[in-house]
């Protein structure tokens, strides 16, 4: 979830009491996390509607000694006296406190905005349905679910880490079908800081285009010397190739794809991860273990700089570590991963300029399935849909095709990126602008 960091505050007495009790029990390494949150969910299906209001109040404790450790989580308030499970397995490692980077000067207003109301949420979904019918007559929503949530967390560890976070996130899941009896269905999943940021008109247009493409006949294979990748496609590629820029093995993993100058991609490609990204859905001053977040440039103008590393990777790979441990729920152990991983945009270029410049090629608008990567062969394949482009204009729909090719050719063949950076809820928030790529193929099969 998204967040802003609060300045370190006086630790909660409950959390401190848990740490003290665990230490007395011979568990000197411990961390206590407490979370509470609220969310509103409205769902409209064809035959039924649901409105739910959820309140969560829970905690999680990790504790251990040299002989083992445990993770315990539960609802309500943590009780210092337990019961606590017997530790097992390996000792527990926890991060040392770091001085956080300066917090934002003020809390973003949307963190304090009220949750979307029941009627307001249902009206937004109804509006989406009307706009869809207007954009593509006969098309309808099969199901639309909107969730708007808020939470705050508090963390204390025996190492001295003290952190508080606040989060705000909204998600929209939509399934729609075209007007015909045998029309195919398509789905969209979107995330934003709050529900009011979802624009029914633009979402409906996106659905309508997807439905029109889905209803078209399968495309015949054709040569596409230039392919424009819309943000959802570029983001999926960025995530699919994550082993090249995430984790302590990334440098060795990507070695074979780099040229003699250390160049992994074309100069148009700069990639960063930033847990503090202003306005980002997961924006946070600290990560799920209280480690300060910051921007880390992974690729700069095609040159590999360093991988995304958590504190656990310190000493295992060259580069600075950053706060990138995610805690999706109080039930989960914190695990490292991208927060806002994104391909940096070029503010000088509009997406329409990239599309308009294509003489013969394709515009890959969205993905139709998961990405396959054969690391041994150095190849990738991603099922996409979109349009054929000729003279900068869309000439016919394109579906049932795979964007495929060599990973090295894809990375070095990126000619330009536009300024329309958008983020997508995948494994973390993955962002990309529209991209003009060469050196890739469109095939009927993978």
């Amino acid at each position: 979830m998204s967040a802003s960091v609060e300045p370190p505050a006086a630790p909660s007495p409950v959390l401190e009491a848990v740490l003290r009790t665990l230490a007395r029990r011979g568990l000197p390494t411990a961390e206590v996390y407490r979370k509470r949150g609220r969310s509103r969910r409205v769902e409209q299906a064809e035959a039924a509607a649901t409105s739910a209001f959820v309140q969560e109040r829970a905690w999680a404790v990790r504790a251990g000694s040299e002989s083992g450790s445990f993770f315990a989580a539960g609802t309500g308030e943590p009780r210092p006296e337990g019961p606590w499970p017997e530790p097992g397995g390996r000792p527990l490692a926890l991060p040392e406190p770091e001085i956080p980077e300066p917090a934002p000067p003020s809390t973003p207003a949307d963190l304090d905005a009220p949750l979307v109301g029941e009627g307001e949420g249902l009206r937004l979904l109804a509006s989406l349905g009307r706009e869809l019918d207007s954009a593509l007559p006969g098309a309808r929503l099969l199901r639309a679910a909107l969730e708007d949530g808020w939470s705050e967390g508090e963390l204390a560890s025996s190492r001295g880490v003290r952190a508080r976070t606040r989060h705000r996130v909204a998600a929209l899941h939509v399934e729609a079908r075209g007007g015909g009896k045998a029309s195919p269905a398509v789905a969209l999943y979107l995330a934003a800081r709050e529900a009011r940021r979802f624009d029914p008109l633009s979402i409906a247009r996106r659905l309508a285009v997807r439905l029109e493409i889905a209803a078209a006949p399968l495309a015949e294979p054709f040569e596409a010397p230039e392919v424009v990748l819309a943000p959802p496609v570029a983001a999926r590629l960025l995530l699919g190739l994550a082993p090249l820029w995430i984790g302590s093995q990334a440098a060795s993993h990507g070695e074979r794809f780099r040229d003699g100058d250390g160049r992994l991609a074309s100069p148009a490609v700069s990639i960063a991860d930033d847990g503090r990204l202003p306005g980002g859905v997961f924006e946070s001053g600290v990560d799920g273990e209280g480690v300060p977040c910051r921007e880390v440039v992974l690729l700069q103008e095609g040159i590999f700089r360093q991988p995304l590393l958590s504190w656990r990777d310190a000493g295992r790979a060259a580069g600075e570590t950053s706060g990138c441990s995610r805690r999706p729920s109080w039930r989960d152990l914190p695990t490292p991963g991208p927060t806002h991983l994104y391909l940096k945009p070029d503010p000088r270029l509009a997406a329409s300029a990239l599309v308009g410049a294509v003489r013969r090629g394709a515009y890959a608008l969205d993905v139709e399935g998961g990405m396959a990567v054969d690391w041994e062969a150095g190849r990738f394949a991603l099922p996409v849909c979109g349009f054929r482009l000729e003279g900068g204009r869309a000439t016919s729909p394109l579906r049932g095709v795979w964007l495929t090719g060599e990973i090295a050719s894809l990375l070095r063949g990126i000619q330009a990126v536009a300024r329309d950076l958008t983020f997508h809820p995948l494994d973390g928030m993955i962002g990309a602008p529209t991209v003009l790529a060469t050196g890739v193929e469109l095939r009927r099969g993978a």
Partner: protein
Amino acid sequence: MAAHLTSPWHDRPVPFARLDAPAIARALSQIAERPEDLADAFFERREDIELAPDSTEGPGVRTLCEEGFAVRLLRGSETFLASRDGIDGRSFAEAVRQVARALPSANYPEPALPLGPWEDAAAPELGEFPGLVLRAIRARHVGFPLRLTVRRHRREVAVVGVRLAAAPEREVFYSCAAELPWGRHGELLTELSAASADGVAAACAALFRARHAGPAELASGVAVLGPGATAVLLHEAVAHALEADTLAATGRPEAALGLQLGAACLDVLDDPAAAPAAVARTTDDEGSPVCRRWLLRGGVVEQPLADALWSRLSPACVPGAGRRGSRHLPPGPRSSHLELLPGGAPEEDLFAEAEGGLYLEVASRGALDPASGEFTLRFPYARRLRGGEPAEVLGPCALRGRVADLLSRAAAVGAEAHPAGAGWCAKGGQKLPVWATAPALRLEGVAIA
């Protein structure tokens, strides 16, 4: 060797025995203003204890103890839900107020909600199971790297309505996940025993033996599904296909009644009360009595799976199959324990009439696209059938097709049904265990690749 490691949880009192059901019912009756309104309260306590593999970097023991409740008002086709972590009278009254459609003239009463205490989060039986599995693997004269995660899951629920309060229910079961360099095997178990360890070991050894096997392909031939694979097939192709909300995605659920969905040899039921004792239910997660529900009789659709909502929207549907993955989500129609009634074919006959075909002992996962009816069942390995018995091991493969077409290809049902944990189902983000009792099944004219 311990023959039976299962914990004694089944004999302990459920924590909801002392809920003040009349007071809860009185509060609910204030929001059920219309005669057709359904208002209920769902109380849940769950405990998961996990023993992680020794090689895991994180904590070796993980426990999750949670409890909470949800208040629901069902009015026409609309569901209003308020849910909370933790259980106390004040939160309950607040949730009732949030669900109410009209402002009350006075505050809602705060019922007494005393709960039984949490027991120590300990599951000593988990610690012995990995050793049993390793010994059973060694007994097969093989050895390979293995990461074994064992969990105990305990869930206790109680539903109180305006007029009726169902008796609290409890489910206790285990799950086991084995990770090998060549694949993964997951299984649900109702007990940890030498026999269940042997089953896990057999599945792991089969994955090991298939690690370099050539691809399993069948252009159009005969395949025999083992009981475990049949259970997954039933879950995906029959149960999901006959859930009222799935049927509603393409039309009216009652329109499916009388439809010939599968071959005449298929008699498929959902009977939560006939599940293994540790997970058997007498009521569903809405407090409705469960029933022995004929999904297919002679291959013909007889009664779709329905919960309270869908039994109101489609009066031909009978409630009793409402399940919820969590208090924070509304119930939905789902299966609990599927049965395929045995046929008359002994296993050797199933194999004898499948020369050159494939034996698919277990399925790793399945998926159904409700919109298209397209169905996929994946198998981690296969065995070629030669001379009336399974012969060489082959690699991973998948069976794909449309539900009705695939089920029409069932040609013979085995004579001996076996209990089988069909696995976890995560439809709509609600993760639930599903169980099955099934014999082997022979399919003819199917393509596998």
